[in-house]
C-alpha cells in the first residue's frame, strides 16, 4: 500500500466520526432553533387569539388562520392550562401526510371559557435534515477530493527526494566499489536519511573491501607454505630409503597438496575477479579461444571418446579481459568434458552474441539453480573442486553477461549471452 493511500485511509477513518459528531451537533442545534421559532410562532398566535377573544362582543367560535387549522371554540368542560400535541395528518395543499404541532389552551373571557387550538405544520424540519445531509455529503466529497489532489501534489514534490533515494539504492551495487552518491536535499528528514545511508553504505563498502582483500591476502600467504611442502615432498621422494608403504603415504600427501594448491589458486582467482583486478578489456574472438582450449583437453576428449560437434553461425566477439576469456572457456569446456559420459558428445554453437556449450550426461542430482554456487558439486565428481562454474559466473557477472543452464534432451546446456 502506498503511503498516500494509507494516509487517505487514516484520514477517512478519522473523518467519519468527526463528521458524524458535527452532523448530529449541527442537526440538533438547528432543530432546536427551528423548534424554538415554531414555539414562539404558536405562542404569538395564541396571544393574538386571546386578544381576539377579548374583543368579542358576544361569545362565538371562529377559525382564525387561513388554513383553518387554528380555531377558537367555546369550552363547556371548564378546562384550564394548555397542552402540546403532535399530529400526523394530511396536508390538503401538498397532498401528503405531514407532522403538525398543536397547542391547545384554555382562556376565560367575560365569564366564558374558550378552547384555543393552534396548529402549525412542522415540515420545515424534514427539509432541514435533507439539506443538511446534502451539505455534509458534499463537504465530505470535497474534502476527500481535495485531499487526493493535495496528496498527489505533495507526493510529487515533497517525496521526490525520497523516491530518488530509493532508486539510487535499487541500482547500487556494493561489488562495484563505488560510493553511494545521494542528493543534498533541503528537507531535514530526507537529508538525514541520505546522510545515514551514505554512512552505512560507506561502512559496508569498506567491510566488503576488507573481506575481499583478506581472501586475496590469505590465498597469497598460503602459497609460500604450500611451496615449501611441495618442494620438500619433491626432495623426500628422492630419498633412497623409502619403502613402498612410505611412497603410498607420500602419494596421498602429494595429491592433497596438489588439490589444496589448485583450490587456493581458484579462490585467489575468484577474489581477483571480484576485486576487478583484470582491468584491460579487449574484443576477444571466442572461436580462437575455443580452438586453443580444445587442444588442452584433447587427451580427455579422446580418452572418453567424446564427439565434438561445432556449429558456427557467425563470429563471436566478446568484450572481455583476454586472460579471463581463456579461463571462462576453459572452465566451460572442462565442465563439459569432465561431466560427460564415455562415447558422449559436446555441441558447441557460436553465434554473434551468444555461445552454447552442451554436453551429454546424467541429469543433475543438485538443484539446477545452485550449480553456479561455490563448492556445489554433483554427486560422484571427485576430481572437481566445485569452483569452475562459480568462476564462470563470477567472470560473467563482472561484465554483466548472462549464463543460463538447462537440461535439454539429455544435454546439459549452457547458454552465454554477451
Amino acid at each position: 500500500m502506498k503511503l498516500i493511500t494509507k494516509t487517505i485511509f487514516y484520514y477517512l477513518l478519522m473523518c467519519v466520526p468527526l463528521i458524524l459528531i458535527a452532523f448530529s451537533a449541527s442537526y440538533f442545534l438547528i432543530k432546536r432553533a427551528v423548534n424554538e421559532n415554531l414555539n414562539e410562532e404558536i405562542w404569538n398566535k395564541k396571544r393574538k387569539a386571546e386578544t381576539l377573544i377579548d374583543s368579542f362582543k358576544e361569545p362565538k367560535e371562529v377559525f382564525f388562520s387561513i388554513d383553518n387549522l387554528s380555531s377558537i371554540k367555546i369550552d363547556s368542560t371548564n378546562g384550564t392550562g394548555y397542552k402540546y400535541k403532535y399530529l400526523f395528518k394530511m396536508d390538503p395543499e401538498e397532498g401528503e401526510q405531514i407532522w403538525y404541532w398543536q397547542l391547545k389552551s384554555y382562556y376565560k373571557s367575560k365569564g366564558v371559557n374558550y378552547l384555543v387550538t393552534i396548529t402549525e405544520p412542522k415540515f420545515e424540519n424534514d427539509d432541514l435534515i435533507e439539506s443538511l445531509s446534502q451539505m455534509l455529503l458534499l463537504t465530505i466529497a470535497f474534502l476527500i477530493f481535495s485531499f487526493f489532489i493535495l496528496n498527489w501534489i505533495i507526493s510529487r514534490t515533497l517525496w521526490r527526494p525520497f523516491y530518488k533515494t530509493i532508486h539510487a539504492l535499487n541500482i547500487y551495487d556494493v561489488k562495484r566499489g563505488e560510493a553511494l552518491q545521494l542528493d543534498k536535499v533541503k528537507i531535514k528528514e530526507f537529508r538525514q536519511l541520505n546522510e545515514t545511508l551514505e554512512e552505512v553504505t560507506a561502512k559496508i563498502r569498506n567491510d566488503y573491501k576488507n573481506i575481499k582483500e583478506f581472501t586475496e591476502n590469505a590465498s597469497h600467504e598460503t602459497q609460500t607454505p604450500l611451496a615449501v611442502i611441495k618442494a620438500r615432498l619433491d626432495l623426500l621422494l628422492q630419498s633412497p630409503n623409502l619403502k613402498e608403504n612410505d611412497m603410498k603415504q607420500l602419494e596421498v600427501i602429494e595429491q592433497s597438496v596438489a588439490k589444496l594448491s589448485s583450490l587456493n589458486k581458484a579462490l585467489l582467482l575468484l577474489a581477483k575477479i571480484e576485486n576487478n583486478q583484470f582491468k584491460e578489456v579487449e574484443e576477444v574472438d571466442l572461436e580462437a579461444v575455443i580452438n586453443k582450449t580444445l587442444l588442452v583437453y584433447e587427451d580427455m576428449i579422446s580418452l572418453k571418446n567424446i564427439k565434438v560437434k561445432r556449429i558456427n553461425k557467425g563470429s563471436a566477439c566478446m568484450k572481455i579481459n583476454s586472460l579471463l576469456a581463456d579461463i571462462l572457456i576453459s572452465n566451460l569446456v572442462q565442465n563439459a568434458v569432465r561431466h560427460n559420459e564415455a562415447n558422449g558428445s559436446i555441441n558447441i554453437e557460436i553465434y554473434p552474441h551468444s555461445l552454447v556449450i552442451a554436453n551429454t550426461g546424467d541429469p543433475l542430482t543438485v538443484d539446477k539453480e545452485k550449480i553456479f554456487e561455490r563448492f556445489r558439486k554433483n554427486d560422484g565428481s571427485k576430481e572437481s573442486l566445485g569452483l569452475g562454474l562459480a568462476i564462470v559466473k563470477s567472470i560473467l557477472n563482472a561484465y554483466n553477461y548472462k549464463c543460463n543452464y538447462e537440461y535439454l534432451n539429455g544435454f546439459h546446456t549452457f547458454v552465454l549471452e554477451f
Partner: protein
Amino acid sequence: MKVLVIEDEAELRRSIKEYLHNEGYLVESANDFNKASEKTNVYEYDCILVDITLPHGNGLDIVKQLKKAGSEAGVIIISAKNSLDDKITGLEYGADDYITKPFHLPELNARIKSLLRRKRFDGNNRITLNEISIEPEKRLVTVKNTELILTGKEYDLLLYFVANKNRVLSKNAIAEHLWGDDADRVDGHDFIYTHIKNLRKKLIEKGCTDYLQTIYGIGYNFKVNETNN
C-alpha cells in the same frame, strides 16, 4: 655452474638449494634485497632465481640492475603472485623465465637446464644421453641415429625426464609440466599413464634401453647409468 637463489622464505630457499646441489650445481643464496644486490654486483652467476617480494626491496629491481650491468646470467623470476602484469614486467626487464609458487622442484630444474642450454650454446645445444640424442631447436629426437617421431606431449615428457634423470618425478609434477596452469583442470593422471606408455613403447621399438621405472603409485624415474658421457 653457479646458481644464486634469492628467496626470503628460509625453508623454500633450503629446499631449492638442496635439490639443485644434488643436480651438481654450485648454489649460493641470498635472503633479502641488499644481500642479493651485493652478491650479484660482486660475483658472476650462470643462473639467478629471484623472488619478487623481498625484504628491503623488489626482486624486479635486481633484474633491472643485472641487465644494466650487462650480466650474462640467466634470470628466472619466482613469484607468489600468478599475475600477468608481474610476468610481463619481469620479462620486459630482461628476465628469461617466470615460475609461480607453489612449483615442483623438478620443474624448476628443467627450466634452469633449458635456460642454461639456450644461454650457453648458440644453436648447437644437442642433448645426448647414451643412445638418445635430442636437438631442442628442431624438436628432433634420435635413438641410435634413427629419428624417433613423437607427439608434442611425448616430446615434452622425454625432455622433462632427461632434464630430471635419476630423480623420482611425481605424477603431479609431470602433469604440471605438461599442462602448466591447466594441470589441475585436465585430471591429468590417467593421460600421463597413456603418454608414458606410448613414449616407452616408441623408445623400446627403436632399440632404446628401458630407462623408465614406475615408482609404486607415486610417479616415475628415468634411471640412466651414463656410460660414455
